């Protein structure tokens, strides 16, 4: 397997608390890797380490054969790492289209120079995630599910090679869920590698090629969804610290 991302012994400590503890894994090209774990397991922290929003206390990150440790977030974005935020971060004062255009203007390879072209790309992505009808609205006028889609469209407009999705399916109803799953599959079919964090088991099981389980920052299981979800250690982690 040709690894797009290699994570080697990655750790993050917050004054006493170890949020991510010596995690190692590889993500292959065009692979969808599911990342699950109870609340506070360290999933978002791991995404923050990969995107550069946080610096690791220890360990190494290699993206497409190149060490990216120490690079600021914008450089990693230029290299092709796109992400969404669990706590959504729209640009509230901009229209939905311009929110997405930012991704096209500054994304992979430094982005598109031309504003009109960037807006055209934005529109294409909005169409793709089903938000074209609200393209001219201010972003803060969107409701919850649409905001999730906006996060996704913004990351897609960057034309990423690695996409980090932090709970883009939370709070969606069943039919919306199906749509987003289909979207993520299509993105992958375009050659993008995807790391997807999700609590909705049904979604993660059908979507992921492989699953990775974090618990108290430690990786407690890795493998095919069927295999991992039967794993006694995983079952216990979830039963022992049940969410909701």
């Amino acid at each position: 397997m040709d690894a797009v991302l290699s994570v080697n012994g990655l750790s993050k400590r917050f004054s006493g608390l170890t949020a991510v503890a010596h995690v190692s894994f590889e993500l292959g090209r065009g692979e969808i890797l599911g990342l699950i774990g109870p609340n506070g397991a360290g999933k978002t922290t791991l995404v923050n380490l990969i995107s550069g929003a946080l610096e690791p206390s220890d360990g190494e990150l290699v993206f497409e054969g190149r060490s990216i440790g120490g690079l600021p977030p914008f450089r990693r974005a230029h290299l092709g790492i796109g992400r969404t935020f669990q706590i959504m971060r729209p640009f509230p004062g901009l229209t939905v289209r311009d929110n997405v255009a930012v991704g096209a203007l500054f994304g992979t390879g430094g982005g598109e120079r031309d504003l009109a072209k960037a807006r055209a790309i934005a529109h294409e992505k909005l169409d793709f995630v089903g938000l074209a009808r609200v393209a001219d609205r201010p972003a803060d006028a969107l409701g919850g599910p649409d905001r999730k889609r906006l996060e996704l469209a913004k990351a897609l407009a960057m034309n990423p090679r690695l996409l980090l999705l932090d709970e883009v399916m939370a709070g969606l109803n069943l039919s919306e869920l199906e749509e987003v799953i289909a979207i993520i599959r299509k993105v992958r079919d375009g050659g993008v590698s995807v790391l997807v964090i999700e609590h909705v088991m049904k979604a993660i099981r059908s979507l992921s090629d492989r699953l990775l389980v974090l618990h108290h920052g430690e990786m407690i299981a890795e493998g095919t969804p069927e295999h991992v979800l039967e794993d006694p250690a995983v079952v216990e982690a979830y039963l022992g610290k049940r969410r909701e």
Partner: protein
Amino acid sequence: MRARVVVTLCVVVAVLLAGVPWIASPATIEFGINMLLLAALAQSWNIIGGYTGYPSFGNSVFYGLGSYGTAVAMLSWQLPFGVGLVVGAVIAVVFALLLGRAVLRLRGHYFAICTLGVAEVMTAIVSNLEITGRNQGLVLPLLKGNVLFYELSLALVVVATLVVWWIARSRFGFGLVAIRENEEAAASMGVDTTRYKIFAFAISAAIGAVAGGIHAYWITFIDPVSAFDIGLNVKMIIMAVFGGPGSILGPVVGAFVLSAISEVLSSEISTVAGLFFGIVIVVAVVFMPRGIADLLRRFHTYRWRYFAANVRATRV
């Protein structure tokens, strides 16, 4: 279509303003110079405060550096006024690049307070340097007449507005607005936030410094306290915010309207003028917190509900 009307209107207003010195009294021209310089300063603040979302109190420092840079260039180095303006601008830009690197890491109030401190420090430094005349200040050669200064000030407003117009429709401006709206998201999407913020600060500094240089030569006297006066920075903010921060014309309109109101008030009812001016500002902040620019954009759809909605939104 609507954009073309606005542009035409702006050109007409600029041409009419350029003709004012030939028909107006000296007092009016003096009022005009002050108003135009404030408009240029409000516009310079608009770039860092309005577009980038960093509430700078350091812009009066750029103004002060421009004043002193121009004065020192003319007095100590015998350079012509035009070169002096450039010297002042270069000093301010270099200062902005260095200062920006340090303080643009801070956000919100922290940034504001830190830039405020810098203004105080600069006053102290300039008061103790030989070349800047210590706290006695500097006296520049007298150039009779106001017309040159008036036209230069007008030109500066035009240039500053063109710069903002370019920013508003450029990739650079897109990056600045993204920083204002959510810096972390902007960075994760590939905006080189540090560099963009520092550039915005530097452009803001260049405009502010030229305004300071023009003012220094016009007034022919500068001293540390008035050159680095925080009150001027407050005025820039009030005018930019009153007109509409993050809009192309708002700060200029804000400066014109507020200068006119304050002029009328101080000539009619001098004793309570300050109070009335304060009331105008408070009323404006409550009823139209996003400035005249936003009022004009939305009034035709919301009508009087616009004000009610703003009052509700600000919970006053």
